[in-house]
């Protein structure tokens, strides 16, 4: 076993012992504690746990990689996944806390005085959450596989066991404390390499300032101007320039924001604070802890792509000796080649590697005159950038091991939170709320745990054979939450006139149009080849990409609900009073549901 592997086992092992220890120590005893941690969680602690819950493998592993290769255009993820908290804090969290129930479908069922509405909400919740968990399980599997050197499917199974232990035994109370620990691990793991790299490149250890600083290669240029130039020299677009359309950027940002505010495992967090007042502050604290990672990510992405390009093209573009010699490529390069996620091919047989944009006609002609025969970096998977970053920057092995532990913390914490939302929807909403109202507390708790086991198995199996790329699955989860749950929740609070049929038709219209739009371009149930139209800009309706459609689905949901509510009778008086009651903080009690 080499030094890096030893470090990885030590760091990952220590963090896992910590999580499991906490889960056992905080074992939930009542149904209330299982779902909402006994309402005794301080806003700062709750904010930290929410941040861990929220930041998944996508935030930790994928996002900086997307930023590295898309530059400015990736801003949609940064704004979209943070701006949703503004909506949560102002439009939903305090009111749902005042309402004082355990689950999102419970609110919808009661506000719209309709079991149908509750069942539709459960369906929306389960579909959105399961698709999201599949992505997490896959992330867990890949991370385990890479660092424990096992098969990906074995990695998923190891992950299933770990998730099972602390989610099923601990419930929300266990998860809350475990997630605080996970937040500390993941944020430390994310910022340490960023600080090192920012200091190496700009002399400023604060990554947020380093990205806006001057690069210390003697050129006197700013980091971003230098990066723009380095990329343009190789035929790529400027890092800071916009490549896609503004319409898609706006709609995708909106979809991600609304989706964030509509995701049940995030909303459920705000039921766990003692007071309405704390629900507002809690959203603020959650965003503080999220922002630490999200404002660091742009620096991580920009510096990673700079280091990657500089490794392959250390000298002047066009000079025959300016490119990386194949025999001299660094060990991280060779290690990632083994995973199949990084590939090169010496097309011009000069014993060196060229990385450039061969789709840029003007530059490809110029490259031809240098004797280059096409881009030789035939595959650079975006998802390796965060994991490979500390290796590219030649940081010590303990930092690399830490990043592995952080990635696993991010994936596991999100998977656990989502599983809890799924289990409460099934045991509390379907079983206790609709089919077996007389169920005992003990049986409900047991049913919740069984539902969680079932969800882990389903998500694990699908995680071994994911129905599409992780990004597609995540886009679907956000689009679904945005188009179905968020409008129903928001209108339930802000519009007294919306009645049961308006909510049900609204949710169904939003959900179905979004699902169908995605399936038409991405394939029905993501089965390859079953798409009706090719997935490109020429075929999209009004040029809207399927990933961005959740925002349109939400607008359809709002519009349908408005129209239906005009032509049907208003909700009964006691519902209108309920809405008036949740609008004021006074009189908020602990969660009731029994």
């Amino acid at each position, binding site marked *: 076993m080499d030094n890096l592997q030893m470090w990885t086992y030590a760091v990952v092992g220590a963090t896992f012992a910590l999580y499991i220890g906490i889960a056992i120590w905080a074992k939930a005893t009542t149904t209330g504690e299982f779902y909402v941690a006994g309402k005794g969680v301080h806003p700062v602690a709750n904010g930290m746990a929410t941040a861990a819950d929220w930041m998944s493998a996508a935030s930790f592993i994928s996002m900086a990689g997307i930023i590295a290769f898309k530059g*400015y255009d990736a801003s949609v993820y940064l704004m979209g996944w943070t701006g949703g908290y503004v909506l949560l804090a102002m439009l939903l969290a305090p009111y749902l806390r005042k309402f004082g129930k355990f689950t999102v479908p419970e609110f919808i069922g009661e506000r719209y005085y309709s079991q149908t509405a509750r069942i539709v909400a459960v369906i929306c919740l389960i579909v959105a959450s399961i698709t999201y968990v599949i992505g997490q399980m896959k992330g867990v599997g890949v991370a385990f596989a890479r660092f424990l050197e096992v098969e990906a499917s074995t990695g998923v199974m190891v992950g299933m066991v770990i998730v099972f232990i602390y989610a099923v035994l601990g419930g929300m109370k266990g998860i809350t404390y475990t997630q605080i620990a996970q937040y500390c691990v993941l944020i430390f793991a994310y910022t340490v390499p960023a600080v090192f790299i920012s200091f190496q490149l700009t002399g400023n250890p604060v990554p947020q300032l380093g990205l806006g600083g001057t690069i210390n290669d003697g050129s006197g240029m700013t980091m971003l101007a230098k990066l723009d130039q380095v990329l343009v020299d190789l035929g790529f677009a400027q890092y800071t320039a916009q490549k896609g359309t503004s319409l898609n950027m706006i709609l995708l940002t909106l979809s991600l924001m609304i989706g964030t505010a509509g995701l049940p495992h995030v909303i459920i967090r705000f039921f766990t604070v003692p007071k309405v007042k704390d629900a507002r502050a809690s959203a603020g604290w959650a965003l503080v802890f999220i922002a630490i990672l999200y404002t660091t990510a742009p620096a991580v992405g920009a510096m990673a792509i700079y280091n990657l390009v500089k490794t392959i093209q250390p000298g002047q573009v066009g000079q025959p000796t300016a490119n990386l010699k194949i025999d001299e490529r660094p060990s991280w390069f060779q290690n990632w080649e083994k995973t199949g996620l990084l590939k090169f091919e010496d097309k011009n047989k000069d014993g060196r590697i060229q990385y450039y944009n061969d789709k840029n006609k003007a530059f490809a002609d110029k490259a031809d005159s240098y004797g280059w025969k096409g881009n030789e970096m035939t595959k650079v998977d975006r998802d390796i950038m965060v994991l490979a970053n500390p290796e590219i920057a030649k940081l010590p092995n303990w930092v690399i091991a830490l990043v592995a532990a952080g990635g696993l913390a991010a994936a596991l914490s999100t998977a656990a939170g989502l599983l809890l939302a799924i289990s409460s929807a099934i045991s509390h909403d379907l079983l206790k709320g609709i089919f077996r109202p007389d169920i005992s507390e003990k049986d409900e708790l047991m049913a919740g745990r069984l539902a969680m086991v079932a969800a882990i198995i389903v998500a694990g199996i699908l995680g071994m054979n994911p129905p599409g790329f992780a990004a597609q699955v995540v886009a679907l989860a956000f689009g679904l939450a945005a188009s179905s749950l968020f409008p129903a929740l928001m209108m339930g609070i802000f519009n007294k006139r919306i009645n049961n049929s308006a909510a049900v038709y609204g949710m169904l219209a939003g959900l179905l149009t979004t699902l169908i739009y995605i399936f038409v371009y991405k394939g029905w149930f993501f089965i390859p080849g079953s798409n009706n139209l090719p997935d490109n800009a020429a075929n999209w309706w009004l040029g809207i990409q399927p990933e961005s459609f959740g925002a349109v689905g939400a607008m359809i949901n709002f519009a349908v609900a408005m129209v239906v509510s005009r032509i049907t009778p208003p909700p009964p008086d006691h519902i209108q009073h309920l809405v008036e*009651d949740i*609008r004021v903080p006074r009189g908020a009690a602990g969660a009731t549901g029994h």
Partner: protein
Amino acid sequence: MQPTGSAAEYWKANLRLLAICLTIWFVVSYVFGIMLVDVLNKIHLGGYPLGFWFAQQGSIYTFVILIFVYAKQMDKLDRQHDVHED
């Protein structure tokens, strides 16, 4: 429980505060970060083009401040209209 004068006023004041906050939310992200990005990029903030900074840094900082300001103002409103807890 019919809305008393005070409850209706409280809700109105809340909606007014919401409108202000959401306008700022919209302007820093959608307007500064996307729609006006090219114009703002002509101005620089240290080594950052300003529009780019709003899209990748500034909007996030603004969101954080916005939530805390909203929470604080709502606490004040709760007390003014006597609808606060405890």
